[in-house]
């Protein structure tokens, strides 16, 4: 167990070091996220001066930015392993495949959280929505939603990384499968920001249940989809 934790830490540190060198993924997903917010904001209308966009609509737009940015993160962190066949180097090592899955998931989540840290303030400024009513509710629901989404995305990124379709195929697979998580998250956001309700324990339990189910299934299946 201790050995696996050390290996997970090593793999995540390696992924983040590579990302820090090139800054390719973070730069790309942030630009994409901001573009999505600006374009959707313009399309839906920011409400004009003095008229902020509703919290529910704003968080829904943020979700779109997180989802598309997330797919790019999943794809890029797996592409690093495919270049020069680095994945085979990992698979021939005494490394549990489950540990590799957890490491990739953590790397993806870290990149997604960086995306959220940059894109969310942009949306708050642009849409002038009031996050102060449920700041922690927003953070918790988004974090749980992203975890479920990344759990599925990490699995399918590994599965499609050896195909030539990649990006398009990954989005086609991940978006429908993550619908339960996205639906549960947006419903909680609607209740908090549109109906003024407090963060509900039942909603959180549902989201958590989906997360655990996705994590367990993906962790179990991950080994089977890895092909050097």
């Amino acid at each position, binding site marked *: 167990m201790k050995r696996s934790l050390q290996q997970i830490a090593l793999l995540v540190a390696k992924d983040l070091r590579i990302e820090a060198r090139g800054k390719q993924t973070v730069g790309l997903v942030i630009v994409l996220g901001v573009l999505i917010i600006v374009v959707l904001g313009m399309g839906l209308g920011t409400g004009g001066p003095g008229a902020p966009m509703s919290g529910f609509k704003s968080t829904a737009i943020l979700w779109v930015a997180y989802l598309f940015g997330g797919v790019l993160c999943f794809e890029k962190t797996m592409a690093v392993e495919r*270049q020069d066949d680095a994945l085979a180097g990992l698979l021939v090592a005494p*490394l549990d495949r489950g540990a590799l899955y957890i490491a990739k998931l953590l790397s993806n989540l870290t990149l997604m959280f960086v995306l959220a840290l940059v894109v969310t303030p942009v949306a708050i400024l642009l849409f002038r929505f009031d996050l102060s009513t449920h700041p922690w509710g927003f953070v918790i629901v988004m974090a749980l939603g992203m975890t479920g989404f990344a759990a599925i995305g990490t699995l399918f990124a590994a599965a499609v990384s050896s195909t030539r379709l990649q990006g398009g195929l990954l989005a086609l697979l991940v978006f429908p499968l993550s619908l339960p998580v996205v639906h549960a998250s947006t419903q909680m956001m609607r209740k908090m920001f549109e109906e003024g309700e407090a963060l509900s324990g039942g909603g959180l339990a549902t989201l958590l249940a989906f997360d655990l189910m996705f994590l367990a299934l993906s962790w179990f299946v991950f080994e089977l989809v890895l092909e050097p």
Partner: protein
Amino acid sequence: MTVSLSTPAATAIPGAAAAVRAEKLTKAIDDKTILKDINLDISAGRYVALLGANGAGKTTLLKILATLVAPSGGVLKLFGQTVRRDSIHIRSRLGLIGHGAMLYRDLSARENLVFFGRLYGVADAPGRAAELLKFVDLAPRANDPVKTFSRGMMQRVSIARALMHNPDLLLADEPFSGLDAPSCRMLEEMLSRLHGQGKTVVLANHEISQSLRLAEQAVVLRKGRVVLDEPASSLDPAAVLAEVSAR
């Protein structure tokens, strides 16, 4: 140059424990049979050349030996232990040099080696990395990103990566392809030196004369079957070529 490879494996002794024992190994992908009834016995410390035309099944066999791919049938034993999908402990005794360098381009040669060393639980990974970078004659470029290296240099780092954990069995899949003559010679010397230190080496290669010169045992694959398994010294390159290219 001499390099201490911490704990050399046992030298080849006739009748010694088998490093590799394959019994009726088969591999089929969809309906296509890639390997059929492969029987292979490689005793510890041997230098074995795996020969065959393109598509003969050399790479698939090496991937199975490296535990990267599961066979569809048959039994594979490495160092006396039956290989299963979760054979993590067996993997710590294997080193693989493949078609790709299996390195991270944005990391330096030293960072790559230290990373893989720690993944294998090597006690002093930075020290071992420095030792091996000297061994492959790349110490002056240790801190340069691998993406700035030539193919030959990447291949040398790849060899160092495969040796970080001092494996008992080194599997090399066409390591000479794409290398210039000096790099080929250097790689030949490295593999021979490792063999001299008691490592079992399995080399998949296209060059018949070179393979017979380097190895002690030659195994020829044709259409997924072993058609020849003889001491290399007893074989004539022309006869091997005939076996390789026969239809």
